[in-house]
């Protein structure tokens, strides 16, 4: 899926659930993106402070981020700092999976048409795999 010659676009995945964040981020890496994982909104703002070096393309964040700022407030803050930066809010694992599929569709390396339900299934599979011991262990 990933083209090694292409410079990877950098996006932030912010989710307070480490298992969901990992699954979504891994999926997006397989789609060719460089993913910065954030567990709360304050981390996203730290990343934004280094945006000139990082060149962020999008932020995918859970609406129910834990900490001092939820996803809605984070989106408002990001819009003040980088009005042109895509901020995609998700309220559930399914919504996050669909948003990840949407981001991947923007890239040139994904086969089309992409089935959002397939992405949900894929991410559920990843999560299920994360919960069960490896067969080779």
């Amino acid at each position, binding site marked *: 899926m990933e083209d090694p010659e292409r410079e990877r676009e950098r996006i932030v995945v912010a989710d307070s659930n*480490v298992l969901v964040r990992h699954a979504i981020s891994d999926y997006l890496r397989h789609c060719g993106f460089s993913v910065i*994982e954030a567990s*709360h909104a304050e981390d996203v703002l730290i990343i934004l402070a280094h945006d000139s070096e990082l060149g962020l393309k999008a932020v995918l964040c859970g609406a129910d981020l834990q900490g001092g700022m939820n996803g809605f407030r984070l989106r408002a803050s990001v819009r003040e700092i980088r009005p042109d930066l895509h901020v995609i809010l998700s309220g559930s694992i399914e919504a996050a999976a669909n948003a990840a599929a949407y981001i991947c569709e923007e890239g040139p390396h994904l086969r089309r048409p992409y089935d959002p339900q397939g992405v949900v299934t894929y991410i559920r599979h990843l999560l299920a795999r994360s919960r069960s011991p490896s067969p*080779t262990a």
Partner: protein
Amino acid sequence: MGARSTWLTKGGHVLVQKPTVLIVEDEILIRYVMGEGLRDEGFDVIEASGADEALLVIASGPQVDIVLTDIRMPGSIDGLGLAAAVKDLHPSLPIIVLSSHLPSEPVCRADRFLPKPVLFLTLLDTINELIEPRWKTQKESGSAS
């Protein structure tokens, strides 16, 4: 060096496996740079922003081959507490503790302590040194199954 390994299953399938590194670090930029570096070297990487997340990952069952943890982190326990908790659960799971603050007492149950800032090559060598016996054992176990 690519951190990949292959072995044959009972059914004759060749499995390509990559060791999984669990990085536990609350500073997002350090975690990101370390994670990307290790992915470039061929590792699978799971990123946790604190000990609580790390314990959730380990309890959830993904195969983790080595843990890298900072000491000073917010949350219910710090990196030393995490090392102790992980060793209670999985005594053979290697743990590297990284910190700019040396533990004052020999209370750390980690396998290695590396002072920050650490050279990436030093970190890589230490990871490879620690996972090799565990990885080799798993390969033999995989071949025999």
